[in-house]
């Protein structure tokens, strides 16, 4: 994802769109802690999905989002790219059944 990072404060999170999409959370040194997906079951899309995760992950200080209707495939792609770059999923992501393998090159 190439979007700009924002600070995890109430004002920035409240300003997030209610659309579906994907998001990333990072800690102060910039390590990606979590890659999430705001699917069509979330009440207020990215806004509620980011808020929920930020509340759960204490060391998350910044987030970035991407609005996309292809949220499932984009989410899996981001996870696969992360594994290709770092050898593992972000710390706060659980194993994903049937996650594929990418070598973006």
């Amino acid at each position, binding site marked *: 994802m190439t979007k700009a990072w924002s600070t995890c404060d109430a004002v920035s999170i409240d300003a997030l769109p209610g659309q579906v999409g994907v998001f990333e959370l990072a800690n102060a040194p910039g390590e990606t802690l979590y890659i999430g997906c705001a699917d069509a079951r979330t009440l207020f899309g990215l806004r509620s999905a980011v808020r929920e995760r930020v509340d759960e992950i204490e060391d998350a200080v910044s987030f970035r989002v991407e609005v996309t209707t*292809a949220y*499932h*495939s*984009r989410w899996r792609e981001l996870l696969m790219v992360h594994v290709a770059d770092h050898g593992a999923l972000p710390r706060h992501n659980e194993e994903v059944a*049937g996650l*594929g393998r990418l*070598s973006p090159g």
Partner: protein
Amino acid sequence: MDLQLSEEQELIVGMVRRFVRDEILPLELDLDPDADQLAPADSQRLIAKTKEMGLYGLGIPPEFGGPDVDLVTRTLLAIEMAQHRAGLYAPCYGVFGGAGLAQLFEADDAQKEKYLYPTLRGEMRGFFGLTESSGGSDPARAIQTKAVRDGDDWIINGSKIFISGADRADYGLVFARTDPEKGRNGITCFIVETSWPGFHVRRVVHTLRSAHYATELQFEDLRVPHANVLGEVNKGFAIANDRLSRQRIPYAAGCIGVAVKANELALEYAGQRETFGALLSSRQSIQWMLVDNEIDIKTATWLTLEAAAKADRGEPFRKEAAMAKLVASEAGGRVVDRSMQIFGGYGVTKDFPFERWYREMRIRRIGEGPSEVQRHVIARDLLGASLR
């Protein structure tokens, strides 16, 4: 052709219809509307059920352990299995099993041991790698991926696009040019393992489809043993063509299943929704949409069952399969569109399945040979091979 179902067909179709109603639809209520897989525990539980029903691995020929069910019956079942939100590309979320890559039934014994049987047991997955960025409608001319002989091996260089499921596959069929002078008679099919050096899945290709995204592949000096040539060198195009013809019948059936369900929902809604003091179903313009749905579904069903019946009788069915695929994918699109219109604003929300069907059905006019290519196949059959 007699379209009266036999007692056995009625029974088995009824069984699958109840399975979709009682097992799949309730689970789907809790899934994200774009989901393409069940939770592993649900999946395993339902696979055990379909095995108990004797219907697991429907596409597998009986000599390889699949149930002995003719293609007409399998087509009727495929129509049933598609009647839910994810049904077009993930019918019953795969719990009836799959046959994997049909070409592998033609593999030699060693290849069957290594790839086919583990696939049928659900231990391995494959992908089908034909299309390249240079064009998928006419792969015989468009394929640029090259394979060059090097002792007991072949070295493959090139790329593929729109390849479904390659990132999750253990192996795949890759079509490469082995004799640049010979056109369609210079293409070979290789079984390639995804863990081999030089095999890369470069990116996910996002499309309108929620289920099973596509990928882009690159081969960099990918070394493949000669033993992994499927069929004969330079005869790969026949293998690709054969699969495409066979696939067209279940492909058409999936479109019909979704159309049946969309129409069923539209009929029900039109009978409940009132506007301007009367039910939608009392309006002639709405009635005509439902009538056109019915005609589209019937036409597509007849053509598809006719193609299946011909294949069952061992007669040539290429033209009929092309007609079935063409008509079912185009009719399916129209039925979903009309049904969506009857639902008004609700039709385009993710609260109902139409928006997903609308997106995914659009791909059916392109995938597995676009409508224009089906017309080309039919024209060739009518006018002779001079059209090539």
